[in-house]
């Protein structure tokens, strides 16, 4: 068992943090307030090779593993979850292409992400289908050599700024098996009948773009089908361990960011003639926040390491990491605001933003409740 990061991993952490502090931190409050997508930061992030860093080298990535992606995600989210998500989500949906796409599809859709020319998204959720993916209504019918899509997708990250989306749709409704009959199809945003409506008023991660997508007889060539027809849901399932680990890493980052700010404010703020960090009530909060964050980090690293190395089914571990880390993130952000007192309640300090941002980690990529169901299911031997 090796418990230390390699020199290369330490260098990645150090340089990503330096980037985030110099290029993201000064803009974070503004982009949050105005709910705007940070094009200028994306350009710089591209120079550094951050978008699609896990893509293989031949498609412009650095070939980084799940563990390294967790390290990168943690550093970006510690500085700002909103802009951090814009960077780490630029290649959302690419997992399906990497695993099941043809060489031609990879060549067409992956390099533009690492070149910074395009942003992509994964379109799964619908107004009536959140955690219950198999209840989606978006359909794709075969018409000659084209697919014709109809339906709408909700809460789609990068929805109104993305150039193409891997869309989960029902292609074979007549199939009896509740997990079969779905397919993943790439839809470009410039196709006729496609439209996106930006969703505003989010509680947090407001720099990140979220939209509703509408498909009104959108025609795409049959070559846009990713993997096998009818296997879409099963293809998607394969990445839950990876995507949930990545949300766990986001949560660890938020907790880390909250803890750092709480610690430095506690040392700086004076009351009753001394720094509030002299008070045991504050000390115990800080100790607890840091301890729980470290525990969440180790669970996340273990989950990431397992995605990269272990052959067993690691579904429970990924759900444990996602559920626990997101709870730690919301708790730490809460305590960080508490330690800041009144100052934490206005947007002069970052902790209020982190407090709002943290909540999403308990909701997306499977809610806390769904994660607990999964852990219990695995424990009780009902896993598949």
């Amino acid at each position, binding site marked *: 068992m090796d418990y230390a990061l390699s*020199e*290369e991993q*330490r*260098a*990645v952490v150090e*340089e*990503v943090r*330096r*980037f985030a502090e110099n290029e993201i931190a000064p803009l974070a409050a503004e982009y949050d307030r105005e709910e705007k997508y940070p094009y200028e930061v994306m350009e710089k992030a591209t*120079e*550094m*090779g*951050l978008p699609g*860093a896990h893509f293989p*080298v031949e498609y412009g*990535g*650095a*070939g*980084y593993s799940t563990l390294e992606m967790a390290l*990168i995600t943690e550093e970006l989210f510690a500085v700002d979850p909103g802009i951090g998500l814009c960077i780490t989500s630029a290649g959302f949906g690419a997992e399906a292409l990497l695993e099941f796409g043809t060489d031609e599809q990879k060549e067409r859709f992956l390099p533009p992400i690492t070149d910074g020319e395009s942003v992509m998204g994964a379109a799964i959720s619908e107004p009536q289908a959140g955690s219950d993916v198999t209840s989606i209504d978006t359909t794709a019918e075969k018409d000659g050599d084209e697919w014709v899509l109809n339906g709408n997708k909700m809460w789609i990250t990068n929805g109104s700024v993305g150039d193409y989306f891997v869309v989960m749709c029902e292609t074979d409704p007549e199939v009896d098996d509740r997990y079969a009959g779905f397919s993943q199809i790439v839809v470009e945003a410039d196709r006729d009948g496609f439209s996106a409506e930006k969703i505003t008023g989010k509680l947090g991660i407001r720099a990140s773009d979220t939209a509703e997508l509408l498909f009104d007889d959108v025609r795409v060539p049959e070559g846009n089908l990713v993997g096998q027809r009818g296997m879409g849901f099963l293809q998607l399932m394969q990445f839950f361990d990876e995507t949930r680990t990545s949300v766990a890493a986001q949560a660890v980052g938020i907790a880390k960011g909250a803890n750092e700010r709480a610690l430095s404010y506690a040392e700086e703020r004076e009351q009753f003639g001394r720094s509030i960090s002299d008070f045991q009530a504050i000390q115990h909060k800080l100790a607890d926040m840091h301890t729980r964050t470290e525990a969440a980090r180790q669970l996340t690293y273990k989950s990431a390491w397992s995605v990269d190395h272990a052959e067993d089914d690691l579904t429970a571990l990924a759900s444990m990491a996602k559920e626990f880390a997101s709870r730690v993130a919301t708790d730490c952000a809460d305590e960080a605001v508490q330690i800041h007192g009144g100052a934490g309640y206005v947007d002069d300090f970052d902790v209020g933003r982190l407090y709002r941002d943290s909540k999403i980690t308990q909701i997306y990529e499977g809610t806390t409740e769904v994660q607990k169901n999964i852990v219990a299911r695995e424990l009780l031997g009902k896993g598949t």
Partner: protein
Amino acid sequence: MKVLVTVKEVAEVEDDFEIDGTGVDDRYLEYDLNEWDDYAVEEAVQLQEAGDDIEVVSVTIGPERAEETIRMALAKGVDRAIRVWDDALDQDLLDTATKARVFRAVVEEEEPDLILTGVQAGDDAFGATGVALAESVGQEWAAVVNQLDIDHLLAENVARVHRELEGGVEELTDVELPAVLTIQTGINEPRYASLRGIRQAQSKEIAPKTLADLGLEAGDVESSLFLTEMYEPESESDATLFEGSAEETAAELASVLREKGVGAE
């Protein structure tokens, strides 16, 4: 063309620290690439990207720990690196002449067409290694360079540089290669090491060299300077508060700055 960039891993001191003997207690130090050297590395890499067949080699004097820092230069595009270390170099203070002797041995081996150094190191701040090296290898030099015409250098083998002088004055100088330029901060915008660069840097060469490898002996690196004491001076502060409108306070500030000698007349 070959460009040699000298780099140094410098110690950065935390806000609160304690002095231990003739140095700052190690617990309060963090190590990083010298800020000026970061600009020198960037300038060399820009030169490499603009020209054909330009090799950029970095050299440092430092213990094994310094490899982490020098590898960041490799991640930014430097082709290979040399790290010189020897028990005889493990001294409290390596003076400029000593460093110049070590670097001269490297220069004689590598025969670069251009040598870039930072103007100074952020820790001991002698600001002399570059020019001392130039003198030692008998090359021309330009110090405190804040602009280099890369196209002109590639076309004519002449470094057309702007040098920053006191009081905001700039001097334009042409220096024929081979030459040493000491690079000032602000000459460019140092890049972040790309993730792919960090990955590639892991397999680039950092050649360790001892004094013997360079044809030197312990006697060649005996510093003539010795640290005798280190202390923290008493600090005093003198704050002036301007009151009034922005125009009034700005005018007052300007006159104070002028009195203190900031800005050229």
